């Protein structure tokens, strides 16, 4: 009897073969690669990775480097502003478009197209528009407002907001589309019921619709946050980190340390810090989404 049973290992053989790339990627690249980087962040690797342990030295150096501190500050400022604004803008646009308007497709298409462009293209366009010699500043001045000053890319104090403008332009369409999908996913009878009950539209949005869209908000949040942490190309193209180090970000710090400064250990430590940042957002989310889902059925 028992010998007739086909071996468990070879059952479903084709499916297992088909999953090999996934298994290799998951184990070797994602788990293995991450573990490797974390391990080597405790070493004195320079031009080449070396297993010479230095404990937390790399992290101490990292947190005493001005450029890294500025990078983290920039990420915080950019991240928080981006998060708040992209949600506010995205939701308001979605709510406006959801009013059964004419030209819906055209408007949606125009708002979303920047998302199809690369960060490099985005950064370069806004570099041009924000150019004080030819761009917005010079135009407003030519209208007669001689003292008008708007040169975010040349003013270290506000340079990161110049990047923010470009980031919002590129990314708010995505949030708008997701929010719109969320709004459309809500049962129309909720609106009818609210209308019969005489609840004003803004109240219906805040107290009924937005709470119902919780899943959409959470997944959008995760998408936006992971996108913010990864921000790199936009900075490289738009400001190159300048003026000075005023628009440096962690991802750029990692790249420069690894591939330009031959200081791998710093790169590993910095990227591990980035991982930590993402984990702080993703793990609670995963817990809420999947851990809690058992209770909700």
């Amino acid at each position, binding site marked *: 009897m028992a010998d007739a049973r086909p071996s468990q290992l070879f059952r*479903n053989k*084709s*499916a*297992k073969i*088909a*999953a090999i*790339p996934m298994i290799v990627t*998951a*184990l*070797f*690249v*994602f*788990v293995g*690669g*991450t573990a*490797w*980087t974390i391990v080597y962040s405790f070493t004195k690797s320079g031009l080449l990775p070396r297993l010479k342990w230095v404990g937390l030295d790399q992290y101490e150096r990292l947190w005493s480097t001005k450029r890294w501190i500025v990078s983290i500050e920039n990420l915080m400022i950019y991240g928080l502003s981006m998060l708040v604004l992209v949600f506010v803008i995205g939701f308001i646009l979605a709510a406006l478009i959801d*009013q059964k*308007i004419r030209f819906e497709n055209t*408007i*949606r298409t*125009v*708002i*979303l*197209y*920047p998302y*199809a*462009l*690369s960060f*490099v*293209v985005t950064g*370069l*366009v806004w570099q*041009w*528009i924000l150019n004080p010699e*030819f761009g917005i500043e*010079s135009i407003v001045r030519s209208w007669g407002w001689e003292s008008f000053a708007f040169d975010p890319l040349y003013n270290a104090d506000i340079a990161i907001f110049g990047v923010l403008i470009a980031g919002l332009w590129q990314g708010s369409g*995505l949030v708008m589309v*997701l929010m719109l*999908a969320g709004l459309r996913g809500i049962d129309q009878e909720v609106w009818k019921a609210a209308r019969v009950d005489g609840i004003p539209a803004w109240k219906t949005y805040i107290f009924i619709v937005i709470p119902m869209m919780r*899943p*959409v908000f959470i*997944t959008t949040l*995760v998408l936006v946050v*992971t996108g913010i*942490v*990864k921000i*790199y*190309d936009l900075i*490289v193209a738009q400001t190159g980190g300048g003026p000075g180090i005023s628009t440096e970000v962690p*991802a750029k710090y990692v*790249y420069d340390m690894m591939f330009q400064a031959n200081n*791998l250990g710093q*790169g*590993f430590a910095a990227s591990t810090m*980035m991982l930590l940042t*993402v984990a702080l957002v*993703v793990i609670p989310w*995963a817990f809420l*989404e999947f851990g809690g889902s058992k209770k909700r059925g």
Partner: protein
Amino acid sequence: MVDITSSQLSGPQGPKPRKALSRRNILLYGTLFVVTVYYALPLYVMIVTSLKGMPEIRLGNIFSPPVEVTFEPWVKAWAQACTGLTCDGLSTGFWNSVRITIPSVILSIVIASVNGYALANWKFKGADAFFTILIFGAFIPYQVMLYPIVIMLREIGLYGSLTGLVIVHTIFGMPILTLLFRNYFTSLPEELFKAARVDGAGFWGIYFRIMVPMSLPIFTVAMILQVTGIWNDFLFGVVYTRPESYPMTVSLNNIVNSTQGVKEYNVNMAATIITGLVPLTIYFVSGKLFVRGIAAGAVKG
């Protein structure tokens, strides 16, 4: 019996009167108009700047339409613009991007679709564990895995080659594409799969004869997602290839942000537009499918 015909109608009757220019409508369409103009403006600026000559740029403002239309900046951006050392414009980068994008898109979609199909219909022990790792992997910042992959590619002798970059794109496209395909195949009626098994079709038979012909929309979505994603990539291009095989985004950045020579803004904008042309075309042609593609990342499995 009620006599309907003789009853007199008084008070409100018939359709409710509506003002086309109500305050609400003015506000609504006004806001949307301003927003639309704002979003469209950069594209407009790119186009008009790229069609002006340098003297006109220095004189006028960036929003004014070109007085004298010239295509010279486009020609220059394509064939002559300098990236530090070489001066052969974007054309090299363009063809590099083509040579990177096509195999990457094909390979990543083939692998992810077969894998998603296995996960949806042929579950085996442990499959879900690997899949969970894969999905969480999508959230790991690329920077964490950059160097280990450099080592892996170096070990197999592919570091710096286009093949190596294709593998990298396949790896990082895998989480989202696998999720996309798995969810799609799961949404197909399970009974179809059962019927095909009763009919004696195996793993590949069901995939090619039943699943693929039913899934053309999702393959299109995946293709749009991958073409735009890979075309727009900058980081992997700069890390895993050598200067002679840099993709277009990297060449573009090098052209525009090169510190040598006089800044030719019209050429820069022409180059920027040319680089954005491929994803923009895909976006405007595919319309709804593009939206479906990006929303796929947000729809949980």
